[in-house]
């Protein structure tokens, strides 16, 4: 049973059916009505029906939770103007600790409202000057941009494309662009960017993107909360890539590229395959181990160190103990 009409008040009374609202992380929606839904036998729940403007998808929210999830009216042009003031202001220093950044951004996206989304966008934008964004943060950047653009376009009554141009007049100010009498300056990236190699029509020359991604800050070794577990995959993934590219380049590549037939052949001939792999591992591991240890002064060939002597004397005892 659907009830429609302007007389129905939703949430704290500020929302009515027919209103354009913003659903955090979803975008612009229109309240189409209130419906009583049968959830279980003898138990029903009053749901607010929302229609997402972008794709026409229907979203249902329990009426009691409407304010709790952060549903709010579309911002006014005055608020949008304040958002542009913030976006056009000189860049803040980006948060470099990815754990703190991830937590803050997630909170801002869900409960921060329009300014929260703008802060996420600006924070990640300023971070791009320092380092390339990892995949998840690149997705977050795109999502924040999309949500912000949707609201700017809805609030100002302009096409989405015009809203995007205006947003980037603030983030990438063209020469001579002014905001309230103050000329905006474009800040150059701090990270040196590799130029593209000459690309053919099929090869677009972006294969080396992942190799250039760097992780300047050290991963903290502190105890990790449950929220951070999904981020660890990303961090670990990147670390593994760095180890592979640095320590065992030859051994890791054929394993990835080898087709199923070649893998079967290598399984049939383990004697020929193993030494090659081992020698490759040893060759790659030796320089890494050498570089990791601090350089010690050379000891005369005939003399053994006191530690070595102690180890030699202890080793038979250990073996006996183990056996």
């Amino acid at each position, binding site marked *: 049973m659907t009830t429609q009409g302007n007389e129905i008040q939703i949430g704290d009374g500020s929302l009515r059916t027919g209103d354009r609202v913003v659903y955090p992380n979803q975008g612009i929606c229109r309240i189409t009505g209130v419906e009583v839904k049968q959830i279980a036998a003898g138990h029903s729940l009053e749901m607010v029906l929302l229609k997402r403007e972008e794709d026409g998808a229907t979203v249902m929210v329990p009426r009691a939770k409407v304010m709790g999830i952060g549903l709010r009216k579309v911002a006014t042009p005055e608020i949008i103007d304040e958002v542009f003031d913030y976006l056009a202001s000189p860049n803040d220093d980006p948060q470099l600790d990815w754990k703190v950044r991830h937590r803050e951004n997630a909170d801002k996206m869900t409960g921060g409202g329009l300014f929260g989304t703008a802060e996420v966008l600006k924070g990640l934008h300023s971070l791009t000057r320092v380092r390339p964004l990892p995949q998840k943060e690149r997705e977050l950047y795109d999502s924040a941009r999309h949500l912000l653009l949707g609201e700017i376009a809805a609030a100002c009554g*302009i096409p989405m494309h015009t809203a995007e*141009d*205006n947003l980037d007049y*603030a983030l990438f100010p063209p020469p001579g662009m002014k905001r309230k009498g103050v000329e905006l300056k*474009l800040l150059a990236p701090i990270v040196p960017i590799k130029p593209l190699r000459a690309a053919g029509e099929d090869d677009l020359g972006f294969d080396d993107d992942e190799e250039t991604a760097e992780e300047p800050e050290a991963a903290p070794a502190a105890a990790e909360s449950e929220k951070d577990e999904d981020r660890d995959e990303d961090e670990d993934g990147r670390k593994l890539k760095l180890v592979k590219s640095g320590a065992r380049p030859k051994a890791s590549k054929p394993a990835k590229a080898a087709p199923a037939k070649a893998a079967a052949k290598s399984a049939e001939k383990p004697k020929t395959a193993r030494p090659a792999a081992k020698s490759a591992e040893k060759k790659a591991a030796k320089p890494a181990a050498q570089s990791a240890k601090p350089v010690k002064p050379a000891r005369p060939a005939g003399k053994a160190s006191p530690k070595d002597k102690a180890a030699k004397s202890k080793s038979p005892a250990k073996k006996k103990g183990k056996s």
Partner: protein
Amino acid sequence: MIRIVTLGEFPPDVLDHAQRRIHAAYGMGCELQGEAKLPKSAFTADQDAYDGPKLLDQVDDDTELYADDKLLYLMTAPIGGPIGPMGKGPTDGFAQQGGGRCVVTSAQLGGKGQLTLEAGLAKRAAHYVGHLWDLHHCFDPRCAMHPGWAPGFLQYPEVALCLFCREKSEKKIKLGQG
């Protein structure tokens, strides 16, 4: 398929280059469909340019589009558009974000401090076609989706998409074809 309709005169080699580069960027067929007349009613005297949204509404063109087809109009006259919260800024085209049609101008290309007509038109066209697949502006100066007025757009004349934009466009193209 990406279909190109011209609203002005362009050298054949410039159009050919644009077609090839768009095809390479999106992995999708791109062909020259024909010519159409520029709607005079879309001209706005106060901006001394054609209004992008009006132009797309009023252009007299009977090109048939199928489900995943995109239509790209190329013109030589300057383009303007609605003025937003930041005021008037440089504009070199207009696209229906996530829609089917866009228009790109070659105005100012080949001038001092600008890309050549051939390279500039191909890159601008690839940029606006990207908007049709809901791609947003990209901060990577090497990417074709980098804003057209930013220095990176001129610094890297190659038409290439960054990894993120390329993957996103591929997803959207697959969805459109599905």
